[in-house]
């Protein structure tokens, strides 16, 4: 029951992130939503590791650590793209960023 509760909490967090990524038109809010979804994924890794048959193998912990590193890289590149888009368009509204070639 503990595992299911943790997974349900993680699912709710994931859907908050999905809601932010889908409904907000500000690019930074979309990035915040993506970070929330990644956090929910990390929570799933830790929950499955805690209730696995062999927690001493640390598989879920390893996955969570690598996932945090990837999320940091993704946030850095995403924010650099957002700053460049703002420099070109004077706006971070993703509805206006519709050209690949500036």
């Amino acid at each position: 029951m503990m595992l299911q509760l943790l997974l349900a909490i993680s699912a709710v967090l994931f859907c908050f992130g999905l809601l932010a990524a889908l409904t907000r038109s500000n690019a930074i809010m979309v990035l915040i939503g993506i970070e929330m979804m990644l956090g929910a994924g990390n929570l799933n890794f830790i929950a499955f590791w805690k209730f696995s048959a062999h927690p001493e193998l640390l598989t879920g912990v390893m996955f969570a650590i690598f996932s945090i590193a990837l999320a940091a890289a993704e946030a850095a590149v995403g924010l650099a793209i957002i700053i460049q888009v703002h420099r070109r368009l004077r706006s971070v509204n993703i509805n206006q960023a519709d050209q690949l070639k500036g």
Partner: protein
Amino acid sequence: MHDLFQRLISLPWDQAPQWFFLFPALLMLLAAAAAVMLRNLIHCALCLTLSFIALGVLFIALGAEFVGFVQLLVYVGAVTMLILFAILLTPASEVAASNNPFRSFQLSKALNAVAGGAVAMLVLAGLLAAIFFSPHAQAAVNPAKAATAPAAAIGENLLNHTLLPLQGTAILLTAALIGAALLAKEDKRS
């Protein structure tokens, strides 16, 4: 201060009840909901920070101390600071939404919110159904021994079993750093 810290550490944390982790989880969900709903971007970023702090505390409460502290350092210390800086560097301008084809369509924003909310609710319903009605999840029982992840074991695992992914992550982080600096650099030609 040191005395208080010692007393806090010596409390019987490992005998805490099973539902103890519900407090940070609830705080995390509330802060995440606030981050999604609030209009002011700075408030959103601060609520996101609170949500990530609660997530790190939740990791620590679940026995993964190292991941919890990495979460606090990387997300709270670096990622939300980056997001706050990006918000401050990209002020909303008055020419915003000037060439949006849907601008005249007042219903567009409400329609967008309703459609996004419907998709999110559908995904949530699907996930919850899968979680609570899956036979695998119902068969899961609490393991006999408590799961712990000491930092020494994690370091040994990193260097023995996941050395190649570790090196790949190092290359990726270097590439992301250089790429982010190049992308955000002022374009001299224009």
